[in-house]
């Protein structure tokens, strides 16, 4: 199985504060892989390292076999990696439509995604098209930030803590939508603290601890083995 994305011994630091100590992982095309672990173990930093937002100090990030570590983020986006950030980060003063339009213009990567298709997946966004993004609810903002990233026609979607701060019902709806994207062939790398959310959708998981991979395996294993789950993710 050749990996779409492969991290090899990635070390990343913010200035003097080192966060990742040799993370290695693989994501194959069509998979949904989840990074699990408590707050501060390096999930977000792993995602940022892949996206080029924080440059790894050593190690390799291979995208379809090419080392993209050190590339600027816009080049990585145009290569087919879509980033959905923690805290959503919608352009608050722009309308929903403008957010999508900017993303379309930003990327210039051709593919099936159009604003109309994003509206099909998230009908609520069409109703709110003229609303300023800053005035949307958390769930609506989460839809917008995913839709915005889809405008770049990514092959791999990096989702950082998508369920954070959302009501359970909203999370259920979001889960269906993300699962639908996966069914359409999108590869997904998810970082989550919420075990519930991630185990319902992931094929495989990596459990991070103190900046390294502590455990990796099929999600089913963690779903079924309560004791293992407790041991790895005890809060």
């Amino acid at each position, binding site marked *: 199985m050749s990996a779409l994305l492969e991290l090899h011994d990635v070390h990343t630091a913010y200035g003097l504060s080192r966060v990742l100590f040799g993370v290695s992982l693989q994501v194959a095309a069509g998979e949904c892989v989840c990074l699990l672990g408590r707050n501060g173990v390096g999930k977000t930093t792993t995602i940022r390292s892949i996206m080029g937002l924080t440059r790894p100090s050593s190690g390799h990030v291979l995208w379809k076999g090419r080392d993209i570590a050190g590339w*600027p983020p*816009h080049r990585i986006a145009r290569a087919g990696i879509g980033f959905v*950030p923690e805290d959503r980060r919608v*352009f608050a*003063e*722009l309308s929903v439509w403008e957010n999508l339009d*900017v*993303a379309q213009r930003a990327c210039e990567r051709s593919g099936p995604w159009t604003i109309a298709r994003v509206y099909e997946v998230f009908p609520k966004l069409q109703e709110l098209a003229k609303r300023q993004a800053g005035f949307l609810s958390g769930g609506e903002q989460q839809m917008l930030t995913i839709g915005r990233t889809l405008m770049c026609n990514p092959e791999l979607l990096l989702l950082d803590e998508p369920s954070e701060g959302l009501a359970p019902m909203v999370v259920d709806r979001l889960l269906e939508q993300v699962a639908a994207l996966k069914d359409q062939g999108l590869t997904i790398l998810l970082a989550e603290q919420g075990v519930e959310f991630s185990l319902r959708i992931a094929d495989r998981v990596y459990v991070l601890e103190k900046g390294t991979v502590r455990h990796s395996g099929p999600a089913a294993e963690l779903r079924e083995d309560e004791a293992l789950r407790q041991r790895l993710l005890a809060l």
Partner: protein
Amino acid sequence: MPEPSFLFGQFLGGLTAAMFLFTIGAGLSLIFGVLRVLNFAHGSFYMFGAYIAWQVMTWLGPGTEYFWLAALGAATGVAVLGVVIERLLLRHLYGREELYQLLFTYALVLILADSVKIIWGTGQLSASRPPSMTGAVQIFGTTVPYYNLFIMLLGPAIALGLWLLMHRTRLGRMIRAAVMDREMLEALGANVGVLYTVMFAVGAFLAGLGGALVTPVKSIVPGMDVEVIVEVFIIVVIGGLGSLWGTFLGAVVFGQVLAFGILIMPRFSIFAVFALMAIILIVRPWGLLGKPLSR
């Protein structure tokens, strides 16, 4: 009490001065609003605009309609200079402390000022209005030169044009998105570095245009850079740095305070402007229409 027509004339004089300053200040405010760089060398761009316009006019024929071509050419030349400076030098200073940016742009002021002296000498140069603008019109008993009228209309036209650019075009939306969250926009695939260069060029263009258009009414001398940068700083501080309409309002306030201050206390009118700026800095440091910095 002076005659109303005299007061009206004074008002229009102030407005003309204001619109010159707005043209220049809009560029400074735009660059600050997007790039978060306070460009001390903006006045130097203005001075270069004036000298280049003079040079081109001298080549093409002074006192002819080539004036317009010279003005556009000068503004474009300054925009190109801006692009070179931004791409080669300034971009290495983004994200550093403001102090480095200030020192860098101040160094540019010195370098550009000396360049002007080397190229054009230290003497005073002058240009004349194009023939189509030499006439005047009577408004409420006041004689208003066509050229002043043109400048008074140009200011609002530039304001409107910039507003439309920012709010009604895709480029403008991209720029506003970059201001809100640069990193996010990059992660969406935008080459924000290019956007910054474009905005710096637009800002420099406006400074160059202001410098070129001022040549028929002011003499072209070394030192005009520092004179104008002080005035432009005052208007953007009054109006709010980074705010387009704030800069417009600041320019109008500046022009009127100066125009009427001269009537009331001739020697202290510039003092009145400084006092106004000081009061605004104390009471409302982000300016009349600006927003408090959230950094």
